[in-house]
């Protein structure tokens, strides 16, 4: 998967036609094979743009920052990123008319070890769902499969599972990088940081990490698109996807196979209901 040429062409065309003020894409890191985001504002920077299977980050995160507010933005999105963009559009965080979206029909990105990333192996929608221009051949929607780590953990006993998560919460340093790197966490002040939330107010203990991560994952349930920006940002390398994938699994299995950001104007699983929703757990 190497779409560098196409993206550079499109970007220079957009700048030439003065359709955009800023173009968000990937750039090769100078010293290793990782890629970092680049916010191109002048056409001279266009040759730095690149897209290969190492373009892992979800760039829609940049749409919430001051650099892109009220500007016409060109952006590169993969399948999962486009779902996040769909969520942002539905939740009125960005204006569609300000965006020029280049949708990539993704064939999966690589992780640090050079293997195909796990979320790409389980990806349901590798094609972009929102786009103005499409690159690559669409491969269509794929079968949903439960995350292997979730499956593995769910098979364990309650106490064992509890101990595993205890380690996660003990290793959390409460830097909130997961939240800041999440494209869907756009609140100007998070509810757990409110001055009135005196139960936990920035301390770093396992219980406070539990509080923050659980609240965070439940506020993202039904909205998370599994781009794993949070996991890439975590300085402690915590497997944060476990929480999100567990929620996604429950939602998919119980609520008419709902997946976040797949359709336009779908606000997430918690914003609709069905008479057929399971009721057997309620007395």
């Amino acid at each position, binding site marked *: 998967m190497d779409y560098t040429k196409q993206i550079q062409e499109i970007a220079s065309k957009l700048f030439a036609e003065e359709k955009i003020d800023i173009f968000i894409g990937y750039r090769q890191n100078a010293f290793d094979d990782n890629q970092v985001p680049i916010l191109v504002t002048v056409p001279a920077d266009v040759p730095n743009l690149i897209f290969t299977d190492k373009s892992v980050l979800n760039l829609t995160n940049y749409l919430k920052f001051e650099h892109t507010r009220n500007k016409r933005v060109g952006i590169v999105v993969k399948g999962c990123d486009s779902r996040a963009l769909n969520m942002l559009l539905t939740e009125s965080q960005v204006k569609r008319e300000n965006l020029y979206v280049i949708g990539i029909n993704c064939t999966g990105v690589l992780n640090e070890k050079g293997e195909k990333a796990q979320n790409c192996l389980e990806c349901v929608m590798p094609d972009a769902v929102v786009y103005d221009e499409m690159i690559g051949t669409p491969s269509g929607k794929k079968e949903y499969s439960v995350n292997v780590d979730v499956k593995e953990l769910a098979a364990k006993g309650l106490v064992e599972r*509890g101990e595993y998560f205890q380690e996660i919460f003990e290793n959390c340093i409460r830097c909130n990088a997961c939240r800041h790197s999440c494209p869907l966490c756009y609140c100007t002040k998070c509810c757990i940081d409110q001055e009135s939330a005196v139960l936990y107010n920035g301390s770093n203990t396992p219980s406070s990490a539990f509080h923050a991560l*659980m609240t965070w994952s439940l*506020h993202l*349930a039904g909205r998370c698109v599994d781009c794993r920006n949070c996991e890439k940002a975590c300085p402690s390398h915590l497997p944060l996807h476990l929480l999100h994938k567990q*929620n996604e699994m429950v939602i998919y299995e119980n609520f008419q196979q709902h997946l976040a950001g797949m359709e336009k104007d779908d606000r997430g699983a918690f914003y609709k*209901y069905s008479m057929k929703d399971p009721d057997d*757990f309620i007395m």
Partner: protein
Amino acid sequence: METEVKETKGQVVSAENPGIVAPADWQPVIMGILCNWCSYAGSDLTGTSRIQYPPNIRIIRVPCSSRVDPWFIIKSLQTSADGVLISGCHPGDCHYISGNYYARRRFLVTKKLLNFVGYHENRIQFSWVSAAEGPKFAKVVAKVTEDIKKLGPLHKYKKENLK
């Protein structure tokens, strides 16, 4: 010999943390979050019709069961509560037409997630109790109390202030 057996028999072992044992006279604290229009009225009826139910429950009234943010459940479990009971109107009876349908979805996900990270699923329970179901409310509270007594005290991720 006899007394020794009795003692161990009477003790309650925490389901999440087998190392923690509570004395036999330990009483759980249950947080009850009730919707204003059905369950709260139902609990009122239980009282006025003089039906006994366990005193372990501490009741909070909310306008609708969909007012309950999963955050409330997490907060209760991190403070004094050993279990949470949330009760609302029967499906279709919601004062706000569809509030409890939305709530139902959230509850399922919250319950499963808490179970996933190591809480016993009986710690978080839900019920539909209408304003006319006084006896049902007593039954529900009795059942939840019974369940949580079996699970033992909750020590997971408690706020440090309480230690």
